[in-house]
């Protein structure tokens, strides 16, 4: 029982990441009709926003320590971050410790700006081009983005820790009447789940309750008609692209403490996020979220020993098995609309 509850928690946690990425991807599919292979790269850049903020806050000056020598036998030096120098060891170190949450503030404008530049500078010219061209250009862009990150940050993963207060685990089992220390879950992963819930609700509320959202939803349903009403739908779509980029970026920032960011994490998530979006159904935001959590939970269950013993290798392929079953039984995914990306 405890194992199952833990796997559900794991599934919700994985699902949060999948759902956030798929949400942004669906926004772009649904509003702009563009197959964006660079979406994973946006997630990756989000993670590297966290890395960058951590690096900026840790910018240090060197002091020579004559009592020690370095590996070449020269007098060794030690680093003091300017932040620590300015604000004192306690508060300064505290700021560095909180670099991931601080990175959110940094990432929002950066990601929106990247989204705008991408849409205005590149994607805009591809709305009327075949999907094949969109794939080629966004895939090229994804490679370029990840290679640029690799050039500056290297290929090795970079640890970007959560603030000290979130590092322990929460004893979840006690709440449910289990013994202490049976069902524990890391605070930061719970934070991630809560964060995802907030972002997803915010996006839905934004689309549901604002005039802007209404126009965009109408545009998703029928672009031409909205255009005929004299509404400048293009400008709104640009904003949507910025929003999608920001959602992917924030998902990445908050993900940094869970798994150390590396330059190819975007590609690792790319295929998976497409599967999530399609299983959810093209053009359906609730579908994307639902599929994200569904696949996350099923993936977690499939990695249980009991399941693997039953079907060897199932943990390797579960996502794809589910995708095939869903697509064969429900032609347009879980909640897809007719006629979207079927040609």
């Amino acid at each position, binding site marked *: 029982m405890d*194992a199952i509850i833990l796997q559900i928690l*794991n599934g919700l946690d994985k699902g949060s990441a999948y759902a956030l990425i798929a949400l942004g991807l669906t926004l772009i599919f649904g509003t702009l009709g563009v197959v964006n292979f660079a979406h994973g790269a946006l997630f990756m850049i989000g993670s590297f926003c966290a890395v960058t903020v951590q690096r900026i806050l840790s910018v240090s000056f060197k002091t020579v320590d004559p009592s020690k020598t370095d590996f070449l036998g020269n007098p060794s030096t030690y680093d003091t971050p300017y932040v620590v120098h300015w604000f004192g060891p306690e508060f300064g170190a505290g700021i560095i410790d909180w670099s991931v949450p601080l990175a959110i503030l940094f990432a929002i404008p950066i990601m929106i700006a990247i989204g705008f530049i991408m849409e205005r500078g590149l994607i805009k010219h591809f709305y009327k081009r075949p999907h094949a061209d969109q794939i080629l250009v966004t895939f090229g862009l994804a490679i370029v983005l990840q290679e640029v990150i690799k050039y500056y940050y290297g*290929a090795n993963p970079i640890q970007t820790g959560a603030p000290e207060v979130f590092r322990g685990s929460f004893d979840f089992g006690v709440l449910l009447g289990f013994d202490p220390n049976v069902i524990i879950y890391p605070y*930061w992963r719970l934070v991630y789940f809560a964060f995802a819930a907030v972002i997803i609700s915010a996006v839905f509320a934004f689309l549901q309750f604002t005039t802007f959202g209404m126009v965009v939803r109408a545009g998703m349903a029928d672009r031409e008609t909205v255009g005929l009403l004299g509404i400048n739908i293009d400008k709104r779509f640009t904003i949507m692209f910025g929003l999608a980029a920001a959602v992917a970026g924030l998902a990445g920032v908050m993900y940094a403490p869970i798994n150390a960011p*590396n330059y190819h994490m975007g590609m690792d998530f790319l295929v998976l996020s497409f599967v999530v979006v399609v299983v959810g159904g093209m053009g359906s935001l609730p579908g994307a979220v639902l599929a994200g959590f569904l696949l996350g939970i099923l993936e977690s269950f499939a990695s249980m020993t009991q399941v693997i013993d039953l079907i060897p290798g199932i943990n390797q392929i579960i996502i794809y098995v589910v995708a095939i079953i869903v697509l064969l039984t429900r032609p347009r995914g879980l909640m897809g609309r007719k006629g979207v990306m079927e040609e």
Partner: protein
Amino acid sequence: MSKMNLTRRGVIKTGAVAGAGLALPTYLSAAAHSGYTNAPTGDTVTLGFNVPQSGPYADEGADELRAFELAVEHLNGEGDGGMLSTFSSKALDGTGILGKKVTFVTGDTQTKSDAARASAKSMIEKDGAIMISGGSSSGVAVAVQGLCQEAGVVFMAGLTHSNDTTGKDKKANGFRHFFNAYMSAAALAPVLKNLYGADRAAYHLTADYTWGWTQQESIQAATEALGWRTVNNVLTPLAATDFSSYITPVLNSGADVLVLNHYGGNMVNSLTNAVQFGLRDKQVNGKNFEIVVPLYSELMAKGAGANIKGIVGSQNWDWKLENQMGAKYTGTNAFVQSFGNKYGFPPSQAAQTCYAQTLLYADAAARAGTFNPCAIGEALAGFEFDGLGNGPTLYRADDHQCFKDVLVVKGAENPEDEFHLVEIVEVTPTEQVTYDPNHPMFAGGALGACNPGA
């Protein structure tokens, strides 16, 4: 910066067929009329360094490449000579190899067998490389070793840790300086017993491919011999990035040791996740829960950051070895000085093994008096040497595996800087990690005959 000289093709032009419109056709496999592939005919010899430059091991590949460049400099008598001065064999004199200046070409393995073979082939077919070295994974090493055997050039393996490289997939033209999974297990077992006792229950998470399996098999055998129990072994997909669903079952499994048979990004992620779930601070059966990462590397330690603290594993070499464990490991400091002065940071174990392999190849050629791969193979087989940083070492003739001391290391609790993330716990002497060439974990293959390619 050294300049690359004439390529081999240029040499053919100036040497053999100057001015001729059409030379006599020859079969390339017998090209230089010397009975072996890519025999150098001019005043240079070309080595091929095939390392991962893209993909997750790109940083490790970059470090290997630095070491190769350094080795070539030293062979050509540039720089401070590095380990040439400490190397027990004195056949090399800093004038290249057999009087020929050493040049090199590089390629990208992408950590894929296919791409690695394509890249190695291009170096052999296009650039006339006579030896291929490098690599950062066992799949690639075995694949490229097979290619070199077929093509008739020598393969000096880089970082490859699977038992198979010198076990069931061994080849006459292939040589490995790096240690292997069996040696890791043999070196770790006594230390684990000292540190954690003989009554332990281990839970294995294993990367689901051949290297992971051989390592898991080795560690399980060695720890069970100590009296440990193995609670479970779960295979994790290579593509996994979040290991939470593999870590949570460990929590209540009754195990008190977690063995992570992962490497590179997999290891960084699984260890990070394990620490997140509080395993490092956990108490089970009245004992501290422990995590073991059998194969360690400096880059992984860097990637894992603070999570690595106190985690035990094994290494082939460490740059602090001579300073801490004495003059037996001479060569280490010479190499670290030379590398550090050029690049500004100490070398990794991947760099050391690649540097040593290049020197060993050059030395064997010099002693054999020819670049013929079979003669070089004979010179390397059964060769005993010292002064390359690992202490006295034997290149065993039966399987072309080097036998030398193995380091047991652990993550430093309070590293003084980013170069001291790993500290040496103990050095396990050669005898303890030596095994019979017919050991079941290595059985099933044969070196076969050496292939000079003619």
